[in-house]
């Protein structure tokens, strides 16, 4: 029996090791920001205020120019796997707002990667965005209204494995 168990573990371990799709080619950080004029107390613990520069940049968008405060509600950093589609849940206890990302092509430049990003709202694929992401350059998706403000989803290629 022990021999059988050992063989099973060995074989499953071998199968996992042979999956080239699980190769980590980089990391993506997804997050959710909130622009508001209301009180931040009701948001609970864990919110982080955005820098003045980032707030000023967001205020250039007509839809966001009236908001005085921008905070980060949550974020998550995940591996980009070569052959897998990854699901990101930037706010840990909510599945109403989720993102998927998957690499679309091999790395052409050392700091750039084409990703296919999907925005899912309440279990429905709402938007698909195909673009080249560059390490360290955050991309904003000005999303739905929530409470008295507006939610903004961010996607950032935080690192890329060198080839």
């Amino acid at each position, binding site marked *: 029996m022990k021999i059988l168990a050992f063989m099973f573990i060995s074989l499953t371990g071998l199968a996992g090791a042979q999956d080239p799709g699980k190769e980590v080619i980089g990391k993506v950080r997804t997050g959710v920001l909130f622009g508001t004029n209301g009180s931040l107390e009701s948001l609970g*613990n*864990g919110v982080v205020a955005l820098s003045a520069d980032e707030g000023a940049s967001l205020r250039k968008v007509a*839809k966001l120019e009236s908001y005085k405060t921008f905070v980060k509600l949550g974020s*998550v950093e995940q591996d980009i796997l070569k*052959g897998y589609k990854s699901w990101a849940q930037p706010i840990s*206890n909510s599945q109403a707002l989720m993102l998927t990302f998957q690499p679309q092509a091999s790395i052409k430049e050392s700091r750039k990667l084409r990703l296919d990003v999907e925005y899912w709202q309440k279990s429905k694929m709402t938007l*698909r965005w195909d673009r080249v992401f560059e390490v360290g350059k955050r991309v904003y998706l000005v999303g739905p209204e929530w409470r008295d403000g507006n939610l903004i989803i961010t996607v950032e290629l935080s690192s890329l494995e060198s080839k």
Partner: protein
Amino acid sequence: MKNDRKEELLTRWMDDGLSDEEMKELEPVLSGSPELHEERARFLLLREKLRDSVPRKVDPPFPDYFNSHLEKLVKAADAAPMVQETPGVFASFNRLWLLWMAPAVTAAVVFAFLLGMKSAQSDNAASSLVDSAAGSEVYSPLANVSTEVIVDRDSDSTLLVVEGLAPLSDSDLAAGGGFSDGDHGYYVNIRGAY
């Protein structure tokens, strides 16, 4: 000349693959059916056009677009007039043509099947390109969604402004429960999903 030998020589003749001796062997057949030269010329022209119009390698931005494009091509092919069969050597030439085209048709069917599998991720066939700017393309399956891509040169950032999304309610984001960074998230195997 036996039919099998004739078909073999005709096939290679179409691809300029005959030696001088084989060409001499085939000449009686060609002189007896001058329309074969015309057919060969049309075949070569079609081959050149196909080579010019089909890129050697293409990275499809989205399968939805290619599916609709393939559908359009199939409809156009169906609408094209049928070619009447001709007897004798010409008929055997047509059979050769079919043999030559079979792998191409099979490849096209496999290609369409793979695209169909990939597009299965979208549950709405009416998805459409809603924006294309700044080196990116945006699609939405929802007809009322529109987008605008803004590139902010000062902060060197890109913003995608989405209009038409349904607002989220308090309960959707579990307000009051607190928010925090975390390493949550999961992934699925692409090959298993599509």
